[in-house]
């Protein structure tokens, strides 16, 4: 945060953010774009890719130095920029890569000191530690404030029952933050290690995000220790959702930028009726509208992130950003395919994958806390 008492309207990233962006952008271009389509078509989780992201040290950035981390101040804006830049490489891989960071961010934001000391140091090694968040439940009218997954207090701690869906890295994650309704109390988050008795993991198959290893996690009277309850039960579900919505928006922004960057040279090169198709207003205006709505998506995301960072209320801003990004990201992805015509429908080009992946923006919640 700046020391200025009354900051001015400003869209300039800090020097640190600029350097960080540079690193992320180079990584996205070199390591993600090429792998994304191969893994998507092979329908596999690129384990080596995720292992390779450990070199970026994403999860350790905000962890305090005494716990082994880099000790950068926890910055929702910087986190949003990281997610935007990685998603320019690929949405699914970016979401998997930042899944541990999102876990760490929530732990830093709402965990107890004891939980931070216990769970954060393992993130500060050169190994990728798969950690994730489980919020969604398999219902058409799912609403994060109306959870079916239940936790009940008992002498040994809590028992957990219910089904979670679309959990990123859900098969491999060794640390899982499960959001559940704590009986007689309200929404709460539980830290689940490994695969305790009564917990099942099953792979899922979706229209997109096929390299994210989305999984169903089922809990049947799963016993958790008392220490598993995040922050001793003081869980602020709305704040958790709002911070995560900023991350999901940032991922949408990065992906849509990739679409704009892809279709621009395509429509300039593709010839029809003796000239580039970009010389036709119906094509050119579609590209213009992608650029316009994308910039609005970005500014709304940045505003919500910056308000969170400055300690201002950001609830309405993150809600509206998520709504706007969900709607316009899908529009942009649809137009991206349309601009390539039949070629866009075929898997030789990445636009069909972006279309399938971006359908998830409206559905995802809770998985990308900044």
């Amino acid at each position, binding site marked *: 945060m700046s020391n200025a008492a009354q900051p001015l309207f400003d869209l300039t990233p800090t020097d640190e953010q600029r350097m960080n962006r540079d690193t992320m952008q180079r990584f996205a271009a070199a390591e993600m774009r090429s792998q994304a389509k191969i893994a998507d078509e092979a329908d596999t989780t690129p384990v080596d890719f995720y292992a390779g992201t450990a070199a970026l040290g994403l999860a350790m950035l905000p962890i305090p130095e005494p716990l082994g981390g880099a000790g950068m101040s926890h910055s929702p804006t910087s986190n949003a920029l990281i997610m935007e830049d990685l998603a320019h490489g690929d949405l699914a891989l970016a979401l998997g890569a930042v899944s541990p960071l999102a876990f760490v961010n929530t732990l830093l934001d709402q965990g107890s000191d004891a939980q931070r000391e216990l769970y954060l140091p393992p993130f500060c090694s050169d190994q990728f530690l798969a950690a994730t968040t489980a919020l969604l439940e398999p219902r058409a009218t799912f609403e994060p404030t109306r959870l079916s997954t239940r936790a009940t207090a008992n002498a040994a701690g809590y028992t957990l029952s219910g089904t979670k869906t679309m959990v990123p890295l859900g098969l491999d994650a060794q640390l899982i933050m499960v959001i559940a309704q704590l009986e007689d109390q309200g929404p709460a988050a539980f830290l689940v290690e490994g695969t305790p008795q009564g917990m099942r993991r099953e792979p899922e198959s979706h229209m997109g995000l096929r390299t994210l290893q989305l999984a169903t996690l089922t809990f049947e009277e799963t016993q958790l220790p008392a220490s598993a309850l995040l922050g001793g039960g003081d869980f602020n579900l709305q704040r958790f959702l709002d911070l995560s919505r900023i991350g999901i928006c940032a991922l949408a922004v990065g992906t849509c930028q990739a679409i704009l960057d892809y279709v621009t040279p395509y429509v300039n090169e593709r010839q029809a009726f003796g000239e580039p198709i970009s010389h036709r207003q119906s094509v*050119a205006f579609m590209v213009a509208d992608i*650029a316009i709505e994308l910039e609005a998506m970005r500014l709304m995301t940045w505003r919500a992130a910056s308000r969170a960072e400055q300690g201002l209320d950001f609830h309405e801003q993150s809600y509206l950003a998520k709504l706007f990004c969900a709607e316009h990201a899908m529009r942009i992805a649809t137009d991206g395919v349309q601009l390539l015509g039949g070629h866009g429908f075929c898997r030789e080009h990445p636009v069909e994958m972006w279309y399938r992946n971006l359908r998830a923006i409206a559905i995802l919640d809770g998985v990308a806390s900044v």
Partner: protein
Amino acid sequence: MINLELSAQHQETYNNLRLVAEHMMRPYSRKYDSEEHSTPVEMAEVAKLLDGGAAGAATEKSSADSVRNGANLLAVTAYEAFCWGDVGLLLSMPGRGLGNAAINAVGTPEQVQEFGKTYAAMCITEPGTGSDSANISTTAVLDGEEWVLNGEKIYVTAGGRCDTLVVWATLDKSQGKAAIKSFIVKKGTPGCEVTRLERKMGIRASDTAAISFSDCRIPRKNLLGSEEVASDEEGRKKAFGGVMQTFDNTRPPVAAMAIGVARAALDMTREILGREDVTLDFATKPCNSSAVQAELYKMEAEWEGAKLLVQKAAWMADNKLPNSMEASMCKAKAGRMGNYVTLRCVELCQSLGYSENDLLEKFARDSKIIDIFEGTQQIQQLIVARRVLGKSSSELK
């Protein structure tokens, strides 16, 4: 540091001007909508208040770095606040015409001294020439130490009530864009005549005039900019580019008008629906909300996105960053958002929205022009597309 909040000073300005809009503009909204072509004399008071510094100081500079929040951000902030009050009445504020912006932007010190404080309107559009403003037919011929103007101008905002006109005319139509110059004409000059006031769907408080020039003679020194017609391609491009650049500065404030009127419609709609127990918690997912709530969320989101685009374009201008594309982006987005939001608000409030008992129907009529003047939606898309695609105006027509 990335921060998309207004500075404390600009926020205070906004709050103050919203009070002005509420108490000195809104009470006259219906009156001047019904009495088209009668002068809203009450706006002179508002203008006086502004001259007294009610809008606050223009520029703030952070001490830590060189970021500026200046006249452009202030302008979009002020326009938004005023247009929450009334778009037509803002356009009827004496001494604040589009011509004033042009004179102050490119006039010589003498021209600014003589005409800067008058009420100056802008004459660009002609009966046969709208968006393709490079194609105008009004002529200016030098005769001794005078320019002689001939032609017809339409859609001159404040053309009836202003004291001064800034007129686009060509020195030689065969030379195209490069020969188009702007001239300052005092109202009352022989040969310059207001021939008609338009009757319009909205912004009826604002007069829109047709003005004819027949052998209208003005002093040679009343030309804005250079008399030279550039001969090489580079210079020709630059000459008209200079004229068009005015729009980079005026498009964000005009876009801000849509932000203001859409905010007014949303505020009123949420109040009316609130009386019938429709409220928003910004928590329930849109697909689990009622249709009317989902639509309100969507409109709030569209409003926010458009507003931030406007602020970005203005911020770029304040910080001397080239913003031609961003100025068009914000005008395109705000123009269509304002139109969509105000019309939808009428629909959501049903008979209450459609009725003249309240102002929602008026907002819906007023908003349409903002997607047309200062460059239509389609012209803005064209400009953005050319920039994004790297195309010239001859390639992407």
